[in-house]
């Protein structure tokens, strides 16, 4: 295993993650998240799991992050959102969580110190082996995750679909003088309504 590659990728991942959780602009944060995920994919490849590395990039960084970005852009939060985020992120608020996380990391370090640990083997686990394992002993997991995905699909559809409370939105559209069905989706075409304000 290539140690240097591992450490570089690790550092990039950590830095990118820190940036993710501290940035105020959602899109920026998402892009950094993508960077972090790709770094982790590199680590996967380094560990001898090329299939997973590919999956990580394609599925995780490729579709999930993209989905995030879609939604964020759909919400169209605007500058006011970023400003209000700043107000919410006071330094004082970091203390508690950081403390907890520090303890957690400490515990982990302790465990790793005293647990059995060795240098990972240098062999590569081929996709073929993964496939055999997946459809062999783990086939029930496959079934379950397919059901899970189905449920998620239905759930997301249901939650995303919303019935128009006709009176309200009509009033809004009449008020603001837009002739189109402005309430159909949640894209506010620059109507100036505050977004993200608490």
């Amino acid at each position, binding site marked *: 295993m290539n140690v240097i590659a591992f450490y570089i990728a690790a550092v990039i991942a950590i830095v990118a993650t820190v940036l993710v959780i501290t940035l105020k602009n959602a899109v920026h944060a998402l892009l950094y998240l993508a960077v972090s995920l790709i770094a982790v994919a590199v680590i996967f490849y380094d*560990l001898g799991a090329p299939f997973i590395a590919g999956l990580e990039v394609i599925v995780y960084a490729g579709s999930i992050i993209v989905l995030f970005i879609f939604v964020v852009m759909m919400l169209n939060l605007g500058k006011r959102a970023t400003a209000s985020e700043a107000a919410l992120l006071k330094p004082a608020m970091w203390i508690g969580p950081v403390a907890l996380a520090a303890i957690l990391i400490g515990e982990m370090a302790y465990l790793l110190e005293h647990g059995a640990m060795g240098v990972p083997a240098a062999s590569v686990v081929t996709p073929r082996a993964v496939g055999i394992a997946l459809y062999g002993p*783990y086939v029930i997991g496959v079934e379950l995750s397919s059901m899970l995905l189905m449920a998620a699909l239905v759930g997301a559809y249901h939650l995303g679909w919303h019935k128009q409370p006709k009176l309200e939105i009509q009033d809004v559209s009449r008020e603001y003088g837009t002739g189109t069905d402005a309430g159909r989706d949640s894209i506010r075409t620059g109507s100036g309504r505050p977004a993200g*304000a608490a």
Partner: protein
Amino acid sequence: MLAGILFALGVVGLLVRRNLVFVLMSIEIMLNAAGLAFVSAGARWAQADGQVMFIFILAMAASEVAVGLALVLQLYREKQSLDLDSVDEMKG
């Protein structure tokens, strides 16, 4: 170790941020970190199991993101903001 650090960072992000999107992002970070831990473990003993677990985690993360983002949309529609603290109607 790396997985642990990443996970801890995810926890911090979860607790600190109030914007629901960021919270979901933090959850993703945490899931990813867990998956990394799994794969490392699998690679340690040169078995496919770790990767299999990661695939499941991936599937789960995907579905969770789908539903979570739908909820984000709902929240925005109701409250016109994504502040997580504003949805405290189940208090008491």
